């Protein structure tokens, strides 16, 4: 059943993705990620010596600073920082550089829905640009429940505000996009079926949540593919933009 969303997309269609890496000069790693109109800038500095208090010195520490577009930093920004921190902590190899701090700074350029997933994607790309050792990449997607009870992906701001409930889901990137074809043998449940982070807002029935997970997983494969392609495209000297239109 095709449904008409405000911008003419179908239920499972993402907005156009664009990723640029290496845009900043002073930062060790930087990336911009845009999904449709939502655009986020991320920069990475690190690893730096020293840690905050109460942090485990046997592991590296991740520090996230979220900068909103305008206005003071308040509770929502702190919440985003915390979610980003725990998400990125789970993808970084923390034992490689113990007793160090890696700072990730996220700057919101424009918010048109699905801001947190966009920021997570940007932060992940920036970490890759900085060369921080990672276990795997993270791909984030936002699924929300439309009025009819079906799941729509990557809502814009209007859709997000009108929906009853939505979920931000972060998956590890799909190994199929990384491994060479032919070597892929799935004996146990693949890694990419795990969820790194799930943040929900609003009330939704359990079946709908499971449906969101399913959709999210399907799209994460596409996102991983896009991510891989944009990483591959870049030579060290240039920073071209990779743009991708997804239809699933």
């Amino acid at each position, binding site marked *: 059943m095709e449904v008409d969303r405000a911008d003419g997309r179908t239920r499972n269609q993402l907005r156009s993705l664009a990723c640029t890496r290496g845009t900043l000069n*002073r930062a060790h790693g930087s990336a911009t990620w845009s999904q449709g109109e939502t655009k986020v800038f991320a920069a990475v*500095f690190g690893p*730096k010596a*020293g840690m905050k208090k109460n942090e485990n010195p046997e592991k590296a520490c991740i520090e996230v600073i979220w900068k909103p*577009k305008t206005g003071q930093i308040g509770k929502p920004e702190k919440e985003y920082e915390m979610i980003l921190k725990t998400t990125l902590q789970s993808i970084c190899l923390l034992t490689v550089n113990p007793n160090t701090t890696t700072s990730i*700074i996220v*700057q919101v350029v424009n918010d048109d829905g699905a801001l947190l997933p966009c920021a997570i994607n940007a932060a992940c790309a920036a970490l890759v640009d900085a060369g921080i050792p990672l276990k795997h990449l993270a791909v984030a997607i936002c699924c929300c429940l439309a009025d009819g009870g079906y799941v729509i992906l990557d809502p814009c701001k209007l859709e997000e505000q009108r929906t009853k409930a939505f979920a931000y889901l972060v998956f590890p990137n799909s190994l199929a996009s990384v491994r060479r074809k032919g070597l892929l043998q799935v004996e146990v449940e693949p890694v990419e079926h795990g969820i790194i982070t799930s943040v929900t807002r609003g009330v939704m029935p359990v079946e709908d949540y499971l449906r969101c997970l399913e959709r999210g997983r399907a799209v994460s494969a596409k996102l991983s593919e896009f991510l891989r392609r944009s990483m591959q495209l870049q030579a060290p000297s240039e920073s071209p933009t990779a743009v991708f239109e997804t239809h699933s």
Partner: protein
Amino acid sequence: MEQRLANTWQMTVNEKKFIETALLSDLRVDGRRPFDYRRLIIKFGREDGLSEVQLGHTHVMGFVTSQLVQPYRDRPNEGTLAIFTEFSPMADPSFEAGRPGESAVELGRIIDRGLRESRAIDTESLCVVAGKFVWAIRIDLHILDNGGNLVDAANIAALAALSTFRRPECSLGGKDAQEVIVHPPETREPLPLIIHHLPIAVTFAFLGKDNIVVVDPTHYEEAVMGGRMTATVNMNGDVCAIQKAGGVGVMHSVIMQCLRIASVKAADMTTKIKNAVSTSLYAYSPQVESYKTERSQRMIKRHTSTAAVDVSEPSHKEINVLLRHHLERSTIRSGELIASSSNAMEIETQLSEQDEKQRDGGARTFIGGPSNWDPLSKGVDSDALKVSLASRGAVRANTKLEESKIENLDVFEQSHPLADVNPVPPLHEVAAIDLQTKGERTLKDAVKPKHKRKKKPSSKTDAS
């Protein structure tokens, strides 16, 4: 935190000596001459009031937002202007998040003085109901990358953002006209701010024993400089503000020389900003394209539906100001403005040469696209078209007002001799007929035939 000290970057003695020695032979580390600016790129976002400026490696973003507030008690009929600078830790590892440091506050103050105290922005026009409601303009400057000379880059970002910002139109209504109704952009076209002049900040650094003066220092030069001075000057030669906070003492003759250089640079920079702004509003560029057509479509729909609407005086004047501006500035850059640095001495001659080069350059970059622009004519076309549409039939130098499309052509025809090198009347007729038969089209389509026609005199091989 002590661990932060371990991470601060220190300048080595070798680097310092190298910079100073190179300056003795009039050479800077990045190959510039002492009075050259770095490459300036001004980009705009999809919405009004969002600008991104790159001056060499320095990267600054400016956002402008507005809000209706109560005015200050001692100025009941003036709007307010507030500048918030964020030295993001993204820009420099030594910048801390949280409270702004000294340099952030100083930067904010310099830009604030340049804009507010020199009355660059007209605050009286921001008043809605005296004593009750005025517009408060808030400028947020985010420093993304510190490559040196943050003041100049941030100032340009603020000016660019202010120039493209549009505030919603509001009117008084309700009982005894005391209620303020803010019209959303769909119903009424938002209004630009009234900007009297553009105050440009030019920063000088004094390096070495002999206090050699350089313009636009990089962050390496800033680490070794003895002192700095920022002069905010506008194109008319007025000095809006001078900031020299401590540092090494310099002779007053040097200060006077710096002011003279600053006024030359200000003229150059003002031209670049104005070109970038007008290009972004009317240019074919992927980032603003759909926004522009969407915006123009909204305007077209509105105009065809409303028959004869009273044009409010201030907006009409503003539009005329815009038209005059654009007719004076007949050279147009491509969507992204890339300007090379120019010599202080021969700035005027070089500027005109650069215009020629960049005009061709601009045209060249668009070869192969769906429409090849001749930047020169495009600027005049689009400006004239937009003005004629926006003024809803009350265009300044226009006589025929039958249909909006014919109207466009007339205004274009009038401004045509001002801009174009070889006017070709017969082709103009063809274009006119072409336009009328096409019926309901977007603004871009309306402009297209003219541009294709324009290319013929300049001998491009695209066939319309």
